[in-house]
Protein backbone atom coordinates (compact mmCIF):
# COMPACT_ATOMS: atom_id res chain seq x y z
CA UNK A 1 0.00 0.00 0.00
CA UNK A 2 1.34 3.34 -1.00
CA UNK A 3 1.54 6.32 1.26
CA UNK A 4 -1.34 8.71 0.69
CA UNK A 5 0.03 11.84 -0.89
CA UNK A 6 -1.97 15.02 -1.38
CA UNK A 7 0.31 16.60 -3.91
CA UNK A 8 -2.22 18.39 -6.08
CA UNK A 9 -5.09 18.85 -3.64
CA UNK A 10 -6.05 22.25 -2.28
CA UNK A 11 -5.40 22.42 1.47
CA UNK A 12 -8.76 24.12 2.02
CA UNK A 13 -10.50 21.19 0.30
CA UNK A 14 -8.84 18.73 2.68
CA UNK A 15 -9.77 20.82 5.72
CA UNK A 16 -13.41 21.24 4.62
CA UNK A 17 -13.81 17.51 3.87
CA UNK A 18 -12.25 16.61 7.22
CA UNK A 19 -14.53 19.03 9.06
CA UNK A 20 -17.58 17.66 7.22
CA UNK A 21 -16.62 14.07 8.11
CA UNK A 22 -15.98 14.96 11.78
CA UNK A 23 -19.31 16.79 12.16
CA UNK A 24 -21.08 13.86 10.44
CA UNK A 25 -19.58 11.48 13.02
CA UNK A 26 -20.52 13.84 15.87
CA UNK A 27 -24.10 14.25 14.59
CA UNK A 28 -24.52 10.49 14.53
CA UNK A 29 -22.64 9.46 17.66
CA UNK A 30 -23.66 12.01 20.34
CA UNK A 31 -26.51 10.54 22.41
CA UNK A 32 -28.20 13.83 23.42
CA UNK A 33 -30.68 15.16 20.90
CA UNK A 34 -29.69 18.80 21.44
CA UNK A 35 -26.01 18.25 20.72
CA UNK A 36 -26.72 15.92 17.80
CA UNK A 37 -29.04 18.54 16.26
CA UNK A 38 -26.47 21.32 16.60
CA UNK A 39 -23.77 19.11 15.10
CA UNK A 40 -26.13 18.39 12.21
CA UNK A 41 -26.85 22.10 11.67
CA UNK A 42 -23.10 22.81 11.53
CA UNK A 43 -22.76 19.81 9.17
CA UNK A 44 -25.29 21.50 6.86
CA UNK A 45 -23.37 24.81 6.85
CA UNK A 46 -20.11 22.98 6.10
CA UNK A 47 -21.83 21.00 3.33
CA UNK A 48 -22.85 24.29 1.71
CA UNK A 49 -19.17 25.27 1.86
CA UNK A 50 -18.20 21.95 0.29
CA UNK A 51 -20.75 22.39 -2.52
CA UNK A 52 -19.10 25.73 -3.23
CA UNK A 53 -15.79 23.84 -3.58
CA UNK A 54 -17.20 21.31 -6.10
CA UNK A 55 -18.51 24.09 -8.38
CA UNK A 56 -22.17 23.62 -7.43
CA UNK A 57 -23.35 27.05 -6.22
CA UNK A 58 -27.00 26.15 -6.99
CA UNK A 59 -26.83 23.29 -4.53
CA UNK A 60 -24.96 25.46 -2.02
CA UNK A 61 -27.81 28.01 -2.06
CA UNK A 62 -30.41 25.25 -1.68
CA UNK A 63 -28.46 23.62 1.15
CA UNK A 64 -28.06 26.91 3.01
CA UNK A 65 -31.75 27.73 2.48
CA UNK A 66 -33.11 24.34 3.54
CA UNK A 67 -30.50 23.11 6.03
CA UNK A 68 -30.31 26.46 7.77
CA UNK A 69 -33.98 27.24 7.13
CA UNK A 70 -36.90 24.86 7.10
CA UNK A 71 -35.08 21.62 8.01
CA UNK A 72 -33.17 23.41 10.77
CA UNK A 73 -36.42 24.87 12.09
CA UNK A 74 -38.08 21.44 12.08
CA UNK A 75 -35.25 19.84 14.06
CA UNK A 76 -34.78 22.75 16.49
CA UNK A 77 -38.50 22.75 17.22
CA UNK A 78 -38.36 19.05 18.04
CA UNK A 79 -35.78 19.89 20.75
CA UNK A 80 -38.62 20.98 23.02
CA UNK A 81 -39.97 17.49 23.20
CA UNK A 82 -38.94 15.30 26.05
CA UNK A 83 -36.36 12.83 24.84
CA UNK A 84 -37.76 9.38 25.65
CA UNK A 85 -35.55 7.24 27.81
CA UNK A 86 -33.67 4.74 25.74
CA UNK A 87 -34.99 1.25 26.43
CA UNK A 88 -32.97 -0.68 28.94
CA UNK A 89 -31.00 -3.27 27.07
CA UNK A 90 -28.03 -5.18 28.24
CA UNK A 91 -24.84 -3.28 27.66
CA UNK A 92 -23.25 -6.36 26.19
CA UNK A 93 -25.92 -6.71 23.50
CA UNK A 94 -25.62 -3.03 22.55
CA UNK A 95 -21.85 -3.38 22.28
CA UNK A 96 -22.22 -6.47 20.10
CA UNK A 97 -24.71 -4.80 17.76
CA UNK A 98 -22.55 -1.68 17.48
CA UNK A 99 -19.46 -3.77 16.77
CA UNK A 100 -21.25 -5.79 14.07
CA UNK A 101 -22.56 -2.55 12.53
CA UNK A 102 -19.10 -0.98 12.58
CA UNK A 103 -17.49 -4.02 10.94
CA UNK A 104 -20.16 -4.29 8.26
CA UNK A 105 -19.90 -0.54 7.67
CA UNK A 106 -16.12 -0.74 7.33
CA UNK A 107 -16.45 -3.60 4.83
CA UNK A 108 -19.01 -1.62 2.82
CA UNK A 109 -16.79 1.48 2.79
CA UNK A 110 -13.83 -0.63 1.64
CA UNK A 111 -15.93 -2.14 -1.16
CA UNK A 112 -17.25 1.29 -2.22
CA UNK A 113 -13.74 2.78 -2.18
CA UNK A 114 -12.48 -0.09 -4.34
CA UNK A 115 -15.22 0.55 -6.88
CA UNK A 116 -14.81 4.32 -6.78
CA UNK A 117 -11.02 4.14 -7.22
CA UNK A 118 -11.59 2.53 -10.63
CA UNK A 119 -13.56 5.52 -11.88
CA UNK A 120 -11.90 7.56 -14.56
CA UNK A 121 -11.57 11.28 -14.20
CA UNK A 122 -13.28 11.74 -17.56
CA UNK A 123 -16.70 13.38 -17.36
CA UNK A 124 -19.76 11.36 -18.38
CA UNK A 125 -21.24 11.82 -21.87
CA UNK A 126 -24.55 13.21 -20.65
CA UNK A 127 -23.09 16.44 -19.25
CA UNK A 128 -21.64 17.88 -22.48
CA UNK A 129 -24.83 16.80 -24.27
CA UNK A 130 -26.96 18.74 -21.79
CA UNK A 131 -24.65 21.77 -21.90
CA UNK A 132 -24.82 21.76 -25.68
CA UNK A 133 -28.62 21.63 -25.69
CA UNK A 134 -29.04 24.53 -23.25
CA UNK A 135 -29.49 27.06 -26.04
CA UNK A 136 -32.55 25.14 -27.23
CA UNK A 137 -34.19 25.14 -23.80
CA UNK A 138 -35.42 28.73 -23.46
CA UNK A 139 -33.15 29.59 -20.50
CA UNK A 140 -29.41 30.07 -20.33
CA UNK A 141 -28.66 28.46 -16.95
CA UNK A 142 -27.93 24.74 -17.51
CA UNK A 143 -29.36 23.45 -14.23
CA UNK A 144 -32.65 25.28 -14.72
CA UNK A 145 -32.73 23.91 -18.27
CA UNK A 146 -32.29 20.36 -16.95
CA UNK A 147 -34.82 20.78 -14.14
CA UNK A 148 -37.59 22.48 -16.09
CA UNK A 149 -37.07 21.38 -19.66
CA UNK A 150 -34.98 18.24 -20.27
CA UNK A 151 -35.93 16.33 -17.14
CA UNK A 152 -39.08 18.14 -16.05
CA UNK A 153 -40.88 14.87 -15.36
CA UNK A 154 -38.49 14.44 -12.39
CA UNK A 155 -39.38 17.90 -11.19
CA UNK A 156 -43.09 17.22 -11.61
CA UNK A 157 -42.82 14.07 -9.49
CA UNK A 158 -40.71 15.90 -6.92
CA UNK A 159 -43.39 18.56 -6.56
CA UNK A 160 -45.91 15.75 -6.14
CA UNK A 161 -43.79 14.33 -3.29
CA UNK A 162 -43.59 17.70 -1.57
CA UNK A 163 -47.33 18.33 -1.97
CA UNK A 164 -48.22 14.87 -0.64
CA UNK A 165 -45.83 15.33 2.29
CA UNK A 166 -47.47 18.65 3.20
CA UNK A 167 -51.01 17.29 2.85
CA UNK A 168 -50.09 14.10 4.70
CA UNK A 169 -48.42 15.96 7.56
CA UNK A 170 -51.44 18.26 7.90
CA UNK A 171 -53.74 15.23 7.99
CA UNK A 172 -51.62 13.28 10.49
CA UNK A 173 -51.18 16.07 12.96
CA UNK A 174 -54.15 17.22 14.99
CA UNK A 175 -52.81 20.51 16.26
CA UNK A 176 -50.94 23.34 14.58
CA UNK A 177 -48.49 25.87 15.87
CA UNK A 178 -50.61 28.86 16.75
CA UNK A 179 -49.57 32.29 15.53
CA UNK A 180 -48.04 34.54 18.14
CA UNK A 181 -50.53 37.10 19.46
CA UNK A 182 -48.15 39.52 21.19
CA UNK A 183 -44.82 39.23 19.42
CA UNK A 184 -42.88 41.85 21.37
CA UNK A 185 -40.51 44.47 19.93
CA UNK A 186 -37.72 42.17 18.72
CA UNK A 187 -40.04 39.90 16.77
CA UNK A 188 -41.87 42.92 15.37
CA UNK A 189 -38.57 44.21 13.96
CA UNK A 190 -37.87 40.80 12.45
CA UNK A 191 -41.36 40.76 10.92
CA UNK A 192 -40.93 44.24 9.46
CA UNK A 193 -37.33 44.01 8.21
CA UNK A 194 -36.13 40.41 7.82
CA UNK A 195 -39.32 38.89 6.40
CA UNK A 196 -39.72 41.38 3.50
CA UNK A 197 -36.01 41.05 2.78
CA UNK A 198 -36.37 37.27 2.57
CA UNK A 199 -39.41 37.53 0.28
CA UNK A 200 -37.45 39.92 -1.94
CA UNK A 201 -34.52 37.49 -1.90
CA UNK A 202 -36.83 34.65 -2.97
CA UNK A 203 -38.04 36.77 -5.90
CA UNK A 204 -34.48 37.60 -6.90
CA UNK A 205 -33.40 33.94 -6.73
CA UNK A 206 -36.41 32.99 -8.87
CA UNK A 207 -35.69 35.50 -11.63
CA UNK A 208 -31.93 35.00 -11.47
CA UNK A 209 -32.44 31.26 -11.94
CA UNK A 210 -33.00 31.64 -15.67
CA UNK A 211 -29.47 32.87 -16.30
CA UNK A 212 -27.36 32.17 -13.18
CA UNK A 213 -27.50 30.01 -10.03
CA UNK A 214 -30.91 30.16 -8.39
CA UNK A 215 -34.36 28.96 -9.33
CA UNK A 216 -37.68 27.71 -8.02
CA UNK A 217 -36.29 25.32 -5.39
CA UNK A 218 -33.98 27.82 -3.74
CA UNK A 219 -36.62 30.55 -3.94
CA UNK A 220 -39.26 28.20 -2.55
CA UNK A 221 -36.99 27.19 0.34
CA UNK A 222 -36.30 30.83 1.23
CA UNK A 223 -40.00 31.69 0.92
CA UNK A 224 -40.93 28.76 3.17
CA UNK A 225 -38.48 29.94 5.82
CA UNK A 226 -39.84 33.49 5.48
CA UNK A 227 -43.40 32.22 6.01
CA UNK A 228 -42.32 30.32 9.14
CA UNK A 229 -40.55 33.38 10.57
CA UNK A 230 -43.57 35.56 9.71
CA UNK A 231 -45.93 33.12 11.40
CA UNK A 232 -43.83 33.09 14.57
CA UNK A 233 -43.45 36.88 14.56
CA UNK A 234 -47.14 37.71 14.55
CA UNK A 235 -47.86 38.30 10.85
CA UNK A 236 -51.37 36.93 10.53
CA UNK A 237 -51.64 37.37 6.77
CA UNK A 238 -48.99 34.70 6.18
CA UNK A 239 -50.73 31.73 7.84
CA UNK A 240 -49.80 28.55 6.02
CA UNK A 241 -52.75 26.44 7.09
CA UNK A 242 -56.34 25.77 6.20
CA UNK A 243 -58.03 25.51 2.83
CA UNK A 244 -56.38 28.58 1.31
CA UNK A 245 -52.86 27.27 1.90
CA UNK A 246 -53.87 23.83 0.66
CA UNK A 247 -55.27 25.37 -2.54
CA UNK A 248 -52.03 27.31 -3.11
CA UNK A 249 -49.94 24.17 -2.55
CA UNK A 250 -51.97 22.07 -4.95
CA UNK A 251 -52.03 24.84 -7.59
CA UNK A 252 -48.34 24.31 -8.36
CA UNK A 253 -48.82 20.61 -9.04
CA UNK A 254 -52.00 21.11 -11.10
CA UNK A 255 -50.37 23.87 -13.14
CA UNK A 256 -47.39 21.65 -13.87
CA UNK A 257 -49.66 18.82 -15.07
CA UNK A 258 -51.56 21.33 -17.23
CA UNK A 259 -48.24 22.51 -18.70
CA UNK A 260 -47.56 18.90 -19.63
CA UNK A 261 -50.94 18.69 -21.35
CA UNK A 262 -50.30 21.96 -23.21
CA UNK A 263 -46.98 20.50 -24.36
CA UNK A 264 -48.80 17.41 -25.59
CA UNK A 265 -51.30 19.52 -27.54
CA UNK A 266 -48.74 21.95 -28.99
CA UNK A 267 -45.78 19.71 -29.79
CA UNK A 268 -47.17 16.17 -29.65
CA UNK A 269 -44.94 15.18 -26.72
CA UNK A 270 -45.97 15.11 -23.06
CA UNK A 271 -44.23 17.93 -21.10
CA UNK A 272 -42.29 19.17 -24.15
CA UNK A 273 -41.74 22.91 -24.50
CA UNK A 274 -41.61 24.81 -27.76
CA UNK A 275 -38.65 27.18 -27.97
CA UNK A 276 -40.98 30.06 -28.94
CA UNK A 277 -42.68 30.13 -25.56
CA UNK A 278 -40.31 28.03 -23.44
CA UNK A 279 -38.88 31.00 -21.52
CA UNK A 280 -42.30 32.37 -20.61
CA UNK A 281 -43.57 28.91 -19.67
CA UNK A 282 -40.54 28.15 -17.51
CA UNK A 283 -40.69 31.47 -15.68
CA UNK A 284 -44.46 31.14 -15.13
CA UNK A 285 -44.27 27.57 -13.85
CA UNK A 286 -41.27 28.45 -11.67
CA UNK A 287 -43.19 31.30 -10.07
CA UNK A 288 -46.09 28.98 -9.24
CA UNK A 289 -43.70 26.29 -8.00
CA UNK A 290 -41.89 28.77 -5.74
CA UNK A 291 -45.13 29.78 -4.03
CA UNK A 292 -46.29 26.17 -3.89
CA UNK A 293 -43.02 24.81 -2.44
CA UNK A 294 -42.73 27.66 0.06
CA UNK A 295 -46.29 27.19 1.28
CA UNK A 296 -45.86 23.38 1.42
CA UNK A 297 -42.68 23.64 3.52
CA UNK A 298 -44.33 26.12 5.89
CA UNK A 299 -47.36 23.80 6.18
CA UNK A 300 -45.03 20.93 7.04
CA UNK A 301 -43.41 22.97 9.79
CA UNK A 302 -46.71 24.13 11.29
CA UNK A 303 -48.05 20.58 11.32
CA UNK A 304 -44.83 19.07 12.67
CA UNK A 305 -44.49 21.69 15.37
CA UNK A 306 -44.80 20.16 18.78
CA UNK A 307 -47.25 21.38 21.37
CA UNK A 308 -46.59 18.31 23.41
CA UNK A 309 -48.60 18.10 26.61
CA UNK A 310 -46.01 15.80 28.10
CA UNK A 311 -43.04 18.04 27.43
CA UNK A 312 -41.08 19.42 30.34
CA UNK A 313 -41.00 22.94 28.97
CA UNK A 314 -44.75 23.11 28.53
CA UNK A 315 -45.40 21.74 31.99
CA UNK A 316 -43.07 24.33 33.40
CA UNK A 317 -44.71 27.06 31.33
CA UNK A 318 -48.19 26.01 32.52
CA UNK A 319 -47.05 25.94 36.12
CA UNK A 320 -45.59 29.40 35.76
CA UNK A 321 -48.78 30.69 34.13
CA UNK A 322 -50.90 29.20 36.91
CA UNK A 323 -48.65 30.78 39.51
CA UNK A 324 -49.15 34.20 37.95
CA UNK A 325 -45.52 34.61 36.93
CA UNK A 326 -44.78 36.50 33.67
Amino acid at each position, binding site marked *: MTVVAFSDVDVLDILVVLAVAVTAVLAVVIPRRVSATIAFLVFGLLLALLWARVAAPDVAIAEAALGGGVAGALLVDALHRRQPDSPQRSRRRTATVTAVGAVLGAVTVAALVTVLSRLTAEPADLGPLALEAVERSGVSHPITAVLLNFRNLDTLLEIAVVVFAAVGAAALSRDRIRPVSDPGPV*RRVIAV*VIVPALVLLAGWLLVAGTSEPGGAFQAGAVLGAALIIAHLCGVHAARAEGRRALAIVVTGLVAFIMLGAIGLAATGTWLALDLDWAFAAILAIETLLTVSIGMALAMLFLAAGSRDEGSVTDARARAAAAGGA*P
Partner: protein
Amino acid sequence: MVIVDIVVIVLLAVGVMFVVAGTVGLLRFPDLASRLHAVSKADVLGLGFIATALAIHILATEPGWAAVGVVAKLALIWILALIGTAANAHLMAGSRRRAEAERGTEA
Protein backbone atom coordinates in the same frame (compact mmCIF):
# COMPACT_ATOMS: atom_id res chain seq x y z
CA MET B 1 -3.21 50.90 -7.34
CA VAL B 2 -0.76 49.89 -4.65
CA ILE B 3 -2.45 52.18 -2.13
CA VAL B 4 -5.79 50.52 -2.86
CA ASP B 5 -4.23 47.10 -2.27
CA ILE B 6 -2.79 48.21 1.06
CA VAL B 7 -6.16 49.63 2.14
CA VAL B 8 -7.91 46.39 1.17
CA ILE B 9 -5.40 44.22 3.04
CA VAL B 10 -5.52 46.39 6.15
CA LEU B 11 -9.36 46.39 6.22
CA LEU B 12 -9.38 42.62 5.67
CA ALA B 13 -6.88 42.10 8.51
CA VAL B 14 -8.89 44.31 10.89
CA GLY B 15 -12.10 42.47 9.99
CA VAL B 16 -10.58 39.04 10.50
CA MET B 17 -9.11 40.26 13.80
CA PHE B 18 -12.57 41.27 15.06
CA VAL B 19 -14.04 37.92 14.04
CA VAL B 20 -11.21 36.13 15.86
CA ALA B 21 -11.82 38.31 18.92
CA GLY B 22 -15.52 37.44 18.85
CA THR B 23 -14.75 33.74 18.59
CA VAL B 24 -12.28 33.92 21.47
CA GLY B 25 -14.99 35.66 23.50
CA LEU B 26 -17.48 32.92 22.60
CA LEU B 27 -15.05 30.30 23.82
CA ARG B 28 -13.52 31.97 26.87
CA PHE B 29 -16.24 34.12 28.48
CA PRO B 30 -17.92 32.61 31.54
CA ASP B 31 -21.68 32.98 30.91
CA LEU B 32 -24.28 33.33 28.17
CA ALA B 33 -24.76 37.10 28.50
CA SER B 34 -21.09 37.96 28.11
CA ARG B 35 -20.69 35.46 25.26
CA LEU B 36 -23.61 37.06 23.45
CA HIS B 37 -22.10 40.47 24.11
CA ALA B 38 -18.76 39.42 22.64
CA VAL B 39 -19.99 37.66 19.55
CA SER B 40 -22.98 39.75 18.49
CA LYS B 41 -20.88 42.90 18.34
CA ALA B 42 -17.39 41.79 17.37
CA ASP B 43 -18.36 39.29 14.68
CA VAL B 44 -20.73 41.67 12.92
CA LEU B 45 -18.18 44.49 13.06
CA GLY B 46 -15.62 42.10 11.58
CA LEU B 47 -18.06 41.15 8.83
CA GLY B 48 -18.55 44.86 8.11
CA PHE B 49 -14.81 45.45 7.72
CA ILE B 50 -14.42 42.39 5.49
CA ALA B 51 -17.38 43.47 3.34
CA THR B 52 -15.91 46.98 3.03
CA ALA B 53 -12.55 45.55 2.00
CA LEU B 54 -14.15 43.35 -0.67
CA ALA B 55 -16.30 46.26 -1.91
CA ILE B 56 -13.24 48.51 -2.36
CA HIS B 57 -11.40 45.62 -3.98
CA ILE B 58 -14.12 44.93 -6.56
CA LEU B 59 -14.62 48.64 -7.32
CA ALA B 60 -10.88 49.02 -7.93
CA THR B 61 -10.35 45.89 -10.02
CA GLU B 62 -13.53 45.69 -12.12
CA PRO B 63 -15.16 49.14 -12.17
CA GLY B 64 -18.60 49.33 -13.76
CA TRP B 65 -22.24 48.66 -13.02
CA ALA B 66 -21.60 44.99 -12.16
CA ALA B 67 -19.30 46.10 -9.36
CA VAL B 68 -21.99 48.47 -8.07
CA GLY B 69 -24.39 45.51 -7.92
CA VAL B 70 -21.84 43.50 -5.95
CA VAL B 71 -21.35 46.40 -3.53
CA ALA B 72 -25.14 46.59 -3.07
CA LYS B 73 -25.22 42.87 -2.22
CA LEU B 74 -22.37 43.27 0.27
CA ALA B 75 -24.20 46.18 1.89
CA LEU B 76 -27.38 44.07 2.10
CA ILE B 77 -25.42 41.27 3.77
CA TRP B 78 -24.09 43.64 6.37
CA ILE B 79 -27.48 45.25 7.08
CA LEU B 80 -29.11 41.82 7.44
CA ALA B 81 -26.27 40.77 9.76
CA LEU B 82 -26.70 43.91 11.92
CA ILE B 83 -30.43 43.38 12.40
CA GLY B 84 -30.43 39.59 12.48
CA THR B 85 -27.62 39.18 14.98
CA ALA B 86 -28.98 41.83 17.32
CA ALA B 87 -32.41 40.18 17.19
CA ASN B 88 -30.87 36.76 17.85
CA ALA B 89 -28.92 37.99 20.86
CA HIS B 90 -32.09 39.57 22.31
CA LEU B 91 -34.19 36.47 21.74
CA MET B 92 -31.63 34.11 23.27
CA ALA B 93 -30.94 36.33 26.28
CA GLY B 94 -34.69 36.84 26.85
CA SER B 95 -35.33 33.11 26.61
CA ARG B 96 -32.65 32.39 29.19
CA ARG B 97 -33.89 35.14 31.53
CA ARG B 98 -37.44 33.81 31.47
CA ALA B 99 -36.25 30.25 32.04
CA GLU B 100 -34.27 31.43 35.06
CA ALA B 101 -37.24 33.41 36.41
CA GLU B 102 -39.42 30.31 36.12
CA ARG B 103 -36.85 28.22 37.88
CA GLY B 104 -36.85 30.85 40.60
CA THR B 105 -40.65 30.62 41.11
CA GLU B 106 -40.52 26.85 41.17
CA ALA B 107 -37.86 26.68 43.84
